[in-house]
């Protein structure tokens, strides 16, 4: 019994990690209606920034990490400057397509800047697991889960309850209207990317703490996708719950079904759960119902 509980708790915490990455999707979506296909690369890039500061330059964590965040923010800004500032008023479709181009570009850039080697990632959270009775919880995931939850609620408040948050939503809804009301679309989109990039770096820290880093880590972007879809792209707090659901299911399936099947069911299962739930709720559990009117 405690075994089941253990898998569920750990699964849920891994799920919260997915939530954090998924939050990157959602934040950019909420502020610009763009689904960012390059989210996984953003995580890798953030990871490399941390590696660069902490391992390569050997800065202590308390300088290295903030510096990595600053650089990530600047990178987000750069993305907006180079790509999206010219696309104001273009269709969302075009902007989404840009993120596909960005994915390929970033992969090349990461290879060129940081090389293809597998790099060590600093141990940011202590390794010793938290042990409660029979239950064993990895500390990085636990701390990560707490951070994710806090960040999730804070962002949710920001987007839903504050005036700047509302402005971002307006931009996402309709560039032209936002512009005609004097809201700078460029600035909002830039903010979205800065936020997305910073969140990705945070995600990388929790994901990779004490592990290794190479461009293959971008897989997390795909793993987090069912979480974002399940929650619905508009809901930041919903992503937390969706992450817990996906993670728990994945944890149980990996533990009990994989050995039986002799294959990796844990990888496809979230996708299948996602498909099933979307059939019941087409815009995710908490996504906005699209206004369909004539």
């Amino acid at each position: 019994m405690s075994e089941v509980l253990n898998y569920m708790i750990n699964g849920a915490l891994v799920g919260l990690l997915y939530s954090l990455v998924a939050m990157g999707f959602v934040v950019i979506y909420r502020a610009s209606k763009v689904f960012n296909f390059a989210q996984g690369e953003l995580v890798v890039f953030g990871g490399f920034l941390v590696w660069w500061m902490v391992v390569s330059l050997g800065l202590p964590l308390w300088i290295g990490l903030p510096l990595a965040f600053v650089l990530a923010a600047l990178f987000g800004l750069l993305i907006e400057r180079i790509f999206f500032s010219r696309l104001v008023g273009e269709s969302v479709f075009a902007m989404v397509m840009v993120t596909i181009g960005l994915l390929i570009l970033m992969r090349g850039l990461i290879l060129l800047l940081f090389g293809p080697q597998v790099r060590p990632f600093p141990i940011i959270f202590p390794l010793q697991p938290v042990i409660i009775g029979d239950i064993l919880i990895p500390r990085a995931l636990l701390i990560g889960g707490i951070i994710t939850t806090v960040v999730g609620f804070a962002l949710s408040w920001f987007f839903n309850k504050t005036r700047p948050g509302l402005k971002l939503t307006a931009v996402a809804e309709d560039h032209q209207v936002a512009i005609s009301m004097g809201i700078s679309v460029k600035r909002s989109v830039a903010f979205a990317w800065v936020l997305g990039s910073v969140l990705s770096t945070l995600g990388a820290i929790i994901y990779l703490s004490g592990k290794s880093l190479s461009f293959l880590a971008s897989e997390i972007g795909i793993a987090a996708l069912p979480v974002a879809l399940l929650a619905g792209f508009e809901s930041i707090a919903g992503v937390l719950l969706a992450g817990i659901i996906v993670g728990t299911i994945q944890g149980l399936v990996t533990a009990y079904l994989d050995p039986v099947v002799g294959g990796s069911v844990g990888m496809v299962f979230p996708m299948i759960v996602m498909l099933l739930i979307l059939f019941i709720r087409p815009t995710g559990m908490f996504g906005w119902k699209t206004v369909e009117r004539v």
Partner: protein
Amino acid sequence: MDPAGVFATSFARDQALIRTGKQGLALALLLLFLLALPELVGPRLVAVATAMLITAVVAVGLQICTGYAGQVNLGQAAFMGAGAYATAVAATTYSLPFWIAIPLGGCAAAAFGFVFGLSAVRIKGFYLVLTTIAAQSIFHFLVLNLPQSWLGGSNGMSLMPAELFGFVFATDRSIYYLCLVIAAIMVAGAFGIARSRHGRAFVAVRDDDVASGMMGIDVVRTKAMAFLVGAFYAGIGGGLWAYYVRFVAVDQFTLFHSIWLVAMIIVGGIGSVTGALVGVVVIITIRETFISLGPTFIQIAPSLGGDVVFAALNVFLGGIIAAFLIFEPRGLMHRWSILKRSYRLWPFPY
């Protein structure tokens, strides 16, 4: 807009693809060039051309699904894989000839795509799009975990070369011609579909699915159809691929391949069959140029090292795609039509 002096005198004329003598001539020359290609260029370029032809079939399918019907599809490589596997199974397990096996591959892929398209009954917009990524994982999972005797599992499947009345398509040249013929048929078909009521229905559903429903278009069916057609093309491409490489394995059809396919139609121009072809040619040409020049670079400047030279390739290609999106989000075809228009109006600017 028509060139000055060209007026459509009949609907046939107005709708024809080839509207001027010059265009007809250009097309004829292109066909002639493609036919003569193996005589004109070396085997490496023939192989590149074969890869382009196969990719073109897949990309044109993606264009129909994504460019016309607006259903961004990131499962195109998986659909291609489904086609390749179906062809391989048909050709090896059931020893069917290639002219049955390839269409069968198309149909199998179409069925796979159709299932995803059907989720349009409930799922809309980007949610639908992203479910196609699931196609990729499910394909991968199925191939590896179904009994080995079905799809070969991690072993992959090998094929014998295609054969027609005793002629064996084993040389690169013969495969090129096989691909050329099939690609030509498929591309012509795509033009036909794009201009037909179905093509229009695809675009209608893309532009406004609520209104198209009230115009008598069955929206769900149309979306599912778009996936079906797109996946059918992918499947045919997969079948050709199976006969070209004569070995199919699950890691030949990854999400990253799907992404590249999307990149191709972006560069060429969303919503144009010709655009898809242009995109395929442009991207593959750039890629192959780099790959061919790479070793030379390394020989000239060994200190650079292969890693630097080839990493630069990815940056360059990614940069090109991004540049297209920034400066010409509607792709090369759009640029071309603007050029054409100003050329026709010349010397008057507007």
